[in-house]
């Protein structure tokens, strides 16, 4: 093996380690969400003081939010496929669509929070309400940062073109974006659906 090929291999190794490091960050973020879930579950029991979440939950609305986030994950997958095929414009197109769907999700969530607060289920109403807004809000904040990241990627694509650096960056973003949808599965199941039963 020539020295050049060896250096090349070494470069690949360090890239794999980079992605693994980002994966470990995602896993620690999972643990952050686990502690917020634990807080919510402990504070939100049937005899707890404060307004009942059950009377304020609008499941049809949450179902639309879920489909927006799921759809944005799918369009993100399509953008990765386009990038791997070397189609720059298509990659950008799918990323823009991902951004629109994700922004729709965040917009709906903000609207929902405002409506809840007007109905009396606000941040200071009870321990359960505080835990609810912290848990769902932390997820919403993550999605908002993801949106910013998608926007940056859309503008980076014409600069770096279809290159190894873009392929690696889109893998980071993909891990992050998919992780947020996975957290949302447990949010709608545990917080909204179980809260509405």
């Amino acid at each position: 093996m020539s020295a050049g090929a060896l250096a090349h291999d070494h470069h690949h190794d360090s890239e794999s380690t980079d992605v693994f490091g980002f994966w470990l960050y995602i896993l620690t973020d999972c643990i952050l969400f686990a502690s917020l879930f634990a807080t919510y579950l402990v504070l939100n029991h049937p005899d707890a003081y404060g307004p009942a979440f059950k009377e304020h939950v609008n499941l049809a609305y949450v179902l639309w939010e879920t489909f927006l986030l799921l759809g944005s994950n799918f369009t993100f997958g399509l953008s990765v496929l386009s990038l791997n095929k070397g189609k720059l414009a298509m990659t950008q197109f799918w990323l823009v669509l991902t951004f629109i769907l994700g922004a729709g999700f965040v917009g709906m969530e903000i609207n929902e929070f405002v409506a809840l607060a007007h109905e009396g289920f606000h941040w200071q109403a009870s321990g359960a309400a505080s835990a609810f807004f912290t848990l769902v809000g932390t997820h919403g904040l993550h999605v908002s940062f993801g949106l910013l990241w998608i926007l940056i990627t859309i503008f980076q694509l014409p600069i770096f073109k279809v290159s190894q650096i873009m392929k690696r960056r889109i893998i980071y973003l993909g891990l992050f974006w998919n992780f947020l949808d996975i957290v949302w599965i447990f949010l709608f199941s545990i917080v909204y659906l179980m809260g509405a039963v």
Partner: protein
Amino acid sequence: MQPDYGTGEKKLSVYIFGLFLCVVLTLIPFGAVMYPDLSDAKTFIVIMVSATLQFLVQVVCFLRLNYSTEQAKMNVMSFILSIFILFVVVAGSLWIMYTLNYRMMH
């Protein structure tokens, strides 16, 4: 050559299949709660089973976790460790708080 990230090969067919399963596994629990037909306990089981299945579908079809290369194995192992920690944090908190409640009330 693409460096090995252990994130698996991306395929359109797998994405579409995953999306279809996720939509079904979302509609089932929402339907069970919005049109109540079962007892509360059974509805809880439907919600938890659907959530777990959708979680697995997303991990396999979208995250593409697999066990084919060294790097992929590292990803899976760290993933299992974090699920274990997650379980300890959530189940442990609930266990402590409920026994605390029991000991103070009885």
